[in-house]
């Protein structure tokens, strides 16, 4: 057993090294709870970057505060761990200052939809070319289990022991309503699906909104890995990603879908648009 | 009387000012406003001569400081002309397109220089000396002038001629006997004046008048009726004064030469009074109107008008005849006081 297992890890490590995605991981070991969905997301982002051969030094990862906010520390790139809710404007500033950089804004559901929710419509309508990764675990993780903006109605949390009285936001519907030019959803348990979405999102010229369903294994005993695995379905191939109304219908469906909901490739990014009007 | 009365006085001379003071003294509630078309504050009119001769500075002309009006809360509207009075609505229409309401009104508009009809075609060549703005205009003209002609014969002209000769100007005086408003000079008086002037080296024409006046460059040429030609640098006209009542005509307030008032200085329209040089006052004993001019009289009349406006019933009496001595020249007057 001992022998076989060692052999297996070596082989695996060799595979991983050959693949190269580890080059996008920093030497810091993630401080997340074992089993946390964020590990998978981290891996998928690294893989997507690797697949796109992005130079590390040209990546800037900006995060807010929360368990998700820790993410830049574990990635080999320029990182900025900012304030609760403020990753979006700072990421925007970086992109506007240096268009050559690939800029990610990363944060949890509290970060992006609660305290920082006011920035979302505006980054979307400005179509500034950054990719937003919303790590949605439907709970405040770092502060230990209070209700968040996506906690289901009635779910018991540490702040609402009798049940959450607030209806949850619907991130995909919001992003579509805000007119984000790229809207997709991934699941932390679906590495390949995430990588595919991430590559499209990063390549997309304009604001990309990526909603990630991920369990908080420590503080959420309702939305577990199992519940999630069974609750999500890939978007059917026949879906036309340029059809915003169809995307909205999908977003409002009783079932939960994974994949790219919407993409408008024709719309110029903020900086492209500025160039157009100022050169005219 | 209703609260927040607005007493308006038109005219910022001695009559208007003493009226305003009396009104304020006896009524600390009402608004009191003086309106006058002259921009310069209340000043000693008779000092204008000294002002242009340089003996008196601008500040010395002012009768009182602005602070006095502020303390007494008397509003000053200077440089504003009343164009029309509408007694029915108690409204004054000002030239700068403002309507002002009064509850009671005192007319103290004084008088303006008069030009006899025979001379009116030459009027554009004349300089006058009846108000501050005249003095401002005249002052720079006078200092370089050597030869001066005076057409006139009123009291101011006598005073003025004397001053000019003291300034070493060469003065020619045309004496118009009949324009010594409000009465005419007697032959005796005229010859007394002539005599007096010859002593002062003032050339006097008593019965010969200019027949032609023309401007020649900056100077003027005067041709007399007997064909004499003379060139002067400036011509002054002093033909007596006419009450400033033009704007009152048509308002329903009775006027003749001046504003007609009874012995209480009331006009025929209720709540409107007149005093000072602009008023023509009825004397019940004489059964006739009389005119009273002069600084001091104007002040007394202003006070009387104000008191009567406030409800009293003071009678104004024609002042005693007195002999006025204009530098050795004796003139009988009832109004003029040497100031």
């Amino acid at each position, binding site marked *: 057993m001992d022998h076989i297992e060692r052999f297996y890890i070596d082989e695996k490590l060799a595979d991983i090294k050959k693949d190269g995605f580890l080059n996008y991981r920093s030497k810091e070991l993630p401080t997340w709870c074992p089993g946390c969905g964020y590990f998978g997301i981290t891996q998928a982002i690294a893989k997507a970057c690797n697949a796109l051969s992005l130079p590390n030094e040209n990546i800037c990862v900006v995060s807010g505060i929360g368990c998700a906010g820790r993410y830049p520390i574990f990635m080999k790139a320029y990182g900025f761990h900012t304030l609760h809710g403020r990753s979006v404007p700072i990421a925007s500033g970086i992109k*506007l200052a240096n268009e050559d950089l690939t800029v990610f804004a990363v944060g949890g559901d509290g970060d992006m939809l609660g305290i920082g929710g006011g920035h979302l419509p505006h980054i979307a309508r400005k179509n500034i070319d950054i990719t937003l990764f919303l790590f949605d675990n439907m709970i405040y993780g770092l502060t230990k289990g209070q209700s968040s903006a996506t906690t289901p109605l009635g779910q018991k949390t540490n702040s609402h022991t009798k049940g959450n009285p607030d209806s949850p936001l619907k991130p995909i519907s919001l992003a579509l309503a805000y007119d984000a030019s790229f809207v997709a959803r991934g699941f932390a348990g679906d590495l390949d699906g995430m990588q595919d979405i991430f590559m499209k999102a990063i390549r997309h010229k304009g604001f990309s909104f990526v909603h990630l369903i991920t369990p908080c294994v420590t503080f959420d005993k309702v939305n577990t890995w199992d519940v999630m695995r069974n609750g999500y379905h890939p978007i059917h191939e026949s879906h036309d990603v340029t059809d915003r109304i169809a995307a909205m219908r999908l977003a409002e469906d009783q079932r939960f879908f994974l994949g790219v909901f919407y993409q408008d490739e024709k719309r110029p990014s903020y900086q492209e648009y500025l160039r157009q009007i100022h050169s005219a | 009387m209703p609260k927040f009365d607005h007493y308006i006085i038109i005219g910022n001379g001695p009559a208007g000012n003493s009226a305003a003071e009396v009104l304020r003294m006896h009524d600390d509630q009402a608004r009191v406003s003086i309106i006058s078309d002259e921009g310069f504050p209340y000043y000693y009119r008779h000092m204008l001569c000294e002002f242009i001769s340089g003996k008196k500075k601008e500040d010395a002309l002012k009768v009182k400081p602005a602070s006095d009006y502020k303390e007494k809360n008397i509003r000053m509207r200077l440089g504003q002309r009343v164009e029309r009075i509408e007694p029915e609505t108690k409204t004054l229409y000002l030239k700068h397109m403002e309507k002002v309401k009064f509850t009671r009104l005192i007319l103290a508009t004084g008088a303006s220089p008069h030009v006899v009809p025979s001379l009116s075609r030459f009027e554009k060549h004349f300089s006058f000396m009846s108000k501050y703005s005249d003095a401002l205009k005249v002052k720079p003209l006078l200092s370089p002038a050597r030869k001066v002609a005076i057409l006139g014969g009123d009291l101011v002209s006598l005073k003025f001629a004397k001053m000019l000769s003291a300034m070493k100007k060469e003065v020619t005086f045309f004496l118009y006997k009949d324009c010594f408003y409000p009465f005419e000079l007697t032959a005796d008086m005229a010859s007394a004046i002539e005599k007096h002037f010859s002593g002062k080296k003032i050339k006097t024409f008593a019965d010969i008048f200019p027949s032609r006046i023309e401007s020649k460059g900056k100077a003027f040429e005067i041709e007399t009726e007997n064909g004499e030609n003379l060139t002067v640098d400036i011509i002054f006209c002093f033909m007596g004064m006419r009450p400033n009542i033009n704007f009152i005509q048509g308002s329903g307030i009775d006027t003749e030469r001046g504003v007609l008032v009874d012995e209480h200085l009331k006009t025929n329209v209720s709540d409107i009074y007149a005093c000072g040089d602009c008023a023509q006052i009825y004397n019940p004993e004489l059964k006739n109107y009389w005119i009273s001019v002069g600084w001091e009289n104007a002040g007394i009349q202003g006070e009387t008008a104000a008191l009567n406006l406030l409800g009293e019933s003071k009678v104004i009496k024609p002042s005693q005849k007195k002999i006025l001595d204009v530098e050795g020249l004796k003139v009988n007057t009832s109004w003029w006081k040497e100031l």
Partner: protein
Amino acid sequence: MADIDIVIEICGSAGEGTISAGEILSRHMSSLGFEIMSFDSYPSEIRGFGKCVAHSRISNQQILSPGKYTDILVVLNDSHSIPQLHAVRENGVVIYDSQPPAYHEEDKSIAGWMAPGMIAYGIPLHSLANKAAGSARGRNMVALGAMAALFGIDEEGFKTSIMKRYATKKQVVIDSNVNSFEEGYVWAKKNVQKLDHLTFSKVKLRKVTQNRIIINGNQAVAQAALDSGIKLFAGYPITPATKIMEIMGKELPKRGGIMLQTEDELSAIGNVIGAGFAGKRAMTATSGPGFTLMTEMTGLAVMAEVPAVVVNSQRGGPSTGLPTKTEQSDLSLVLAGGSGDSPRIVLAPSTVEECYESTCLAFYLAEKYQTLAVLLLDFFLSNSIRNIDEPSLPDKKMLSANISPSKTDLKDYRRFQLTESGISPRALPGTPLGMFVATGLEHNERGKPAYDSKTHLEMTEKRYRKLDGILKEVSPPTWDGPKANVDIGVISWGSTAASAHEAVLKARKVGVNAAFMSSMLLVPLNVDHFVKFSAACKTILVPELNYSGQFAAHLAQYLNRPIEKLNRITGLPMPSEDIFEKIMEIADTQKR
């Protein structure tokens, strides 16, 4: 040859050309060699309907304050102008329209409100404008013409200034304006008898040598930012800072930069910090309510060591306060706002010239010392228009101030390396070996979060050490006056400092032994100089535009002595006249 120092106010309602008349007057007088300081105000927030006042002080000598009393009030709108009369001098001049198209009621006519002693000239503005150009539009120009005639301003030159102002307009517009001016000039020459003694014609002027530009504080800040190489301006509209944003919106794209109008002030400063992180110069401009929001992120700039330049042009507070009034009551907020011990740079210019200078400094210092620099202006300074000598552009050293890591540094890169100066070489995103994570959490030299007491102390000290270097970069406070045995020392800051300086100069002229000190750099404060100044003065007076005496209180901790205060919260700039009076009052009590 006489001196002249007069204040002219033109008051009208929006659309009457009040502000442009003021502007033309100021420009023309400046071109003649006069010093000017102008200040336009719109006492109502909605400019479209309200009252406008163009206030200009014109002198052949140095001007440091706007002047409290008006010598000449030009009335384009009677009822708006009535409240302006309270500032007119006892023997001041009022010019008004004597031919409006309809009768005014008494309480709405300026003519009924002038105090005894004032000199009024009625000019038929309306009818002359109609005569000149067939419309009443040119009333403002008629008024200027009358003013030129009344106060001895050369007619032809003035016309040229008018033509210049409308140079981009159609010929009819130019002609109407010039003709209206002419009409006013001729009419006044002929019909107005001058009763005042104000004249510009007999004044000795300094030679106009250098190119003088006319700008206000906001424009100076914007120009300095452009000259300093700003690449991103992010802002959210708020009076009185909005104009900076508007200028940026126009000028930045021409230079390859971006003006970003954000959803709120949080986003504005966030974008600035982002751009700073990416190595580009960026700035935001706001007022008290916006700065309050920004304090969320000012600490991040300090902690993550990212350059950020923030303008706070103060208005009356607290809360939404008095949006169109001037005050200096955000000092405490700017000095101390935000969580934790967060050393920052605070620059408070006192004049338009200093607005330019301090903005250049702010960009340089923020970049070099990798921290937050706050520029503290106020409504008055933002809008106060001066003619100034063309300022000197920031030099190369100032334009590129980032200290980059060397190759050796990059071998084992420690972004937050402890250094003597407190400055750690900063790698910009895109540099291959310089990757690091900046964070608002306390961190070690490599940027890794660390909460142990040793690291926190070392890092706090490092951040504070930067202040020592900054202090050496900026010239010491102004000390005008004797260096010892001073009876009254006046210390002030911001726009009030200029008024205070003027008051001290005036007091010295009348024999008061007074001295003046102010510092453009408020943080770090050159405490030594202030202590020395204080030791040289019998009494210290601190005038400022707030109720509680915020700067006085700030100084007290260093000076350790009683301080006389002079506080105003009238919403108006600090009158040098009031400071002068206070100085005289103190001088009096000292004698007793």
